[in-house]
């Protein structure tokens, strides 16, 4: 045997599912430095927390099904909406994105693993610790955090329950995980590409993650600073956000939204990357306008750092600021629109087939665009005076997040699971899952546009009678949505355990280095860099 094959043989480990003692099983998953294992861990965490956050959503919708307080008391309702938001953003969408990044990026660039594999392990295992700390606040004396996921001062500083300090430290931990993970992703993409994998050959999913990781490094330290100032105001008598000492509650909002706006692009950019992988495969056509897609991604990210105060139009910021932020926000629609046009142009005259990943991707294009339209509506500052803090906003962000990020990630799982585990999922169950989810999503969130325009405020546990009907409809949709996800859970588990064997190619239109590997790929892939055609 040559040196390299001896080395490879030494590194080969038994398949993760091989029969093993409990101690061996735990050690494998706790100490792994393998990007595939860590990707799996992130995705399993994300799916579990999806049901936890989803259960909270169902309690919320159960309360809102009818007027009157029927299910929970108002303070606990506030805790539910706070935790639902925090969990869905920080414990579901972000870990799902990172899980996909971990699985796919090294395979897509021909790298043996991430640049810093042990750091990769820590980035993951911080999350269960942070999420446990976060979730434990619900059980603490004084109740859990009840001031919305945006943690606005002074509600959080002067009036927040004792558990708020635990929440702040949980946010610190989540931030550390993201920062370390982002450093790893950036360094991997810069330094670990196989020879010949030039920048303009990179798959779009890799580009979107490069940009996302950069955004995370810009914003997570600012969030850390903001919640540290919150901690200080709560415990050390500082007055960052207290005008009595010369501070300003709006300072919190500026700092938070400097983090918060790019954060939503962190949530959606990897989804954009997924769509850019799925659409060309099922159109059997190269992505239209690759170069512009790269530039548009960078433009969206850069612009997203400059528009934060569009979340603050109604707070009394000066007119000049309102005008600037309005124009800058509307500008983001341009590169986003370019992406949507390019996806559609990819499909145009393509040889289309409608397997489950493609269904989710096409639904994404329509419904995310709808969410984007309402976003442009809200960007118009005088109009936003009517929409702000109403259900119109709730409709907007659920459209961009649920049929946006979530659909893209569901599509990604259907798309890549056969590669990861070497078995095909059940297409019929996939179709059932898609159609139920698609219909339920719209039944749940479309009426919220009307509720908002009719004047229903957000974050309220009870509402005026005129809002009853649409709330009832939305609640029915939410429950259908929730139970439809069980089909997905069953499909994933069944596929992994006993699905039909998949080929290496899996999808006939798929292109990229990951499809050159076997299904499942070797535990350590590309230990020698692949040859890449010029």
């Amino acid at each position, binding site marked *: 045997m040559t040196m*390299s094959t001896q080395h490879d043989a030494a590194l080969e480990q038994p398949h993760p599912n091989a029969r093993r003692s409990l101690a061996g099983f735990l*050690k*494998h998953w706790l*100490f792994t*430095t393998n990007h595939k294992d860590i990707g799996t861990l992130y995705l399993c965490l994300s799916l579990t927390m999806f049901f936890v956050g989803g259960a909270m959503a169902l309690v919320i919708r159960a309360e809102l099904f009818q007027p009157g307080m029927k299910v929970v008391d108002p303070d606990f309702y506030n805790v539910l909406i706070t935790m639902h938001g925090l969990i869905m953003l920080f414990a579901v969408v972000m870990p799902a994105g990172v899980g996909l990044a971990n699985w796919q990026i090294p395979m897509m660039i021909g*790298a043996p*693993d991430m*640049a*810093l*594999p*042990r750091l990769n*392990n*820590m980035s993951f*295992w*911080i999350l269960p*610790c*942070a999420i*446990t*700390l976060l979730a434990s606040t619900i059980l603490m004396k004084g109740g859990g955090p009840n001031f919305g996921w945006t943690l606005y001062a002074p509600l959080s500083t002067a009036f927040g329950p*004792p558990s708020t300090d*635990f929440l702040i*430290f*949980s946010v*610190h*931990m989540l931030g*550390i995980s993201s*920062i370390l993970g*982002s*450093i*790893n992703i950036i*360094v991997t993409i*810069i330094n670990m590409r196989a020879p010949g994998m030039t920048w303009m050959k990179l798959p779009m999913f890799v580009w979107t993650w490069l940009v996302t990781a950069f955004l995370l*490094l810009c*914003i997570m*330290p*600012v969030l*850390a*600073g903001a919640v*540290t*100032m919150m*901690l*200080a*105001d709560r415990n*050390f008598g*500082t*007055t*960052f956000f*207290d*005008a*009595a*000492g*010369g*501070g*300003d509650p709006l*300072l919190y909002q*500026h*700092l938070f939204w*400097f983090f918060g706006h790019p954060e939503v692009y962190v949530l959606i950019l990897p989804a954009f990357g997924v769509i850019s992988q799925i659409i060309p495969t099922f159109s059997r056509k190269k992505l239209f306008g690759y170069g512009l897609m790269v530039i548009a991604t960078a433009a969206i990210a850069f612009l997203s750092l400059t528009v934060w105060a569009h979340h603050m139009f109604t707070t009394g910021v000066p007119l000049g600021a309102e005008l600037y932020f309005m124009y800058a926000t509307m500008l983001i629609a341009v590169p986003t629109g370019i992406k949507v046009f390019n996806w559609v142009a990819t499909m145009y005259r393509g040889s289309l087939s409608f397997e489950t990943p493609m269904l989710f991707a096409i639904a994404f294009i329509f419904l995310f665009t709808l969410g984007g339209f309402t976003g442009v509506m809200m960007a118009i500052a005088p109009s936003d005076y009517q929409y702000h803090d109403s259900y119109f906003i709730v409709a907007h962000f659920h459209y961009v997040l649920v049929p946006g990020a979530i659909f893209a990630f569901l599509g990604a799982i259907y798309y890549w699971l056969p590669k990861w585990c070497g078995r095909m999922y059940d297409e019929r169950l996939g179709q059932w899952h898609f159609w139920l989810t698609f219909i339920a999503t719209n039944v749940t969130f479309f009426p919220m546009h009307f509720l908002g325009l009719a004047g229903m405020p957000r974050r309220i546990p009870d509402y005026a009678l005129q809002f009853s009907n649409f709330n009832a409809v939305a609640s029915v949709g939410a429950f259908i949505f929730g139970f439809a996800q069980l089909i997905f859970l069953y499909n994933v588990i069944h596929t992994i355990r006993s699905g039909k064997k998949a080929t290496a190619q899996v999808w006939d239109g798929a292109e990229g280095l990951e499809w050159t590997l076997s299904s499942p790929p070797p535990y*350590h892939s590309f*230990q020698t860099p692949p040859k890449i055609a010029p």
Partner: protein
Amino acid sequence: MAHAQSKYFVPKPSYWPLLGCIGLLTFFVGAAHWLHHVWYGPYLLFLGATIVIMMMIGWFGRVIHENRTGLHNDQVDHSFRWGMMWFIYSEVLFFACFFGALFYTRLWSVPELGGELHPITHILLWSDFTAQWPLMRTPDNSEFTGPASLSSPWGIPALNTLLLLSSGVAVTIAHWGLRHGKRAVLIGGLIISILLGATFLFCQGMEYHAAYTEHGLTLDAGSYGSLFFILTGFHGAHVTIGATFLTIILMRSLAGHFTADNQFAFEAGTWYWHFVDVVWLMLFIFVYWL
């Protein structure tokens, strides 16, 4: 350094990261309990900190060992360099958050409360408040009593600037010594750099003591106190980390670990030290001086 063909080193499974997570969780839970005056808070905090430090010693020790046994090739070295640069970038953004808060408070919220921008806020809230910076008298001076006095920026703060700048020069000279194989210069430069950094910390400690005992400049002395201590406090913490880093580099230099083409950790230490120096310059200009 191994030749270009050799494989990128992918570490075996390791328990250090998980230990770090446990340490972090223990630390933060301890901190929260301490803030709530629960008796075991401080113990958990120190236990957590100890676990994190043990993790760092074990993990970095492992990486140093892998380096010493020739497992790192040039590509791994590049990963470490890029990683350190992006880490420092995230730290820059962390300080940018607090500087942002400083500029916002100085240029917006204090003048606004004093009626200098639009009259209505000043008329409705604390109409006897005059905007000034440093904020010696807060809008609600009975609730948050501003500092009685401040020390001159041209006293200890200016000395501190000199100390850190000289420290940066010293570490650069040490680097020159490393690159030219002059061991005495390397060791001497590092020792001077660390001593200057330690002196800085000592002087900052004295300043903090004076601030609390003589000037009434405390964390709860209004926005000036809040911003002063959070900016200089986090800076001091980073100087401590940097000085510790340099001390470890000194120990490794004494053991002869570094050569002209195996010096990532040395350079990482100097980069971090220069970063800390630049932050201090910004602090000196915008917190102490202007």
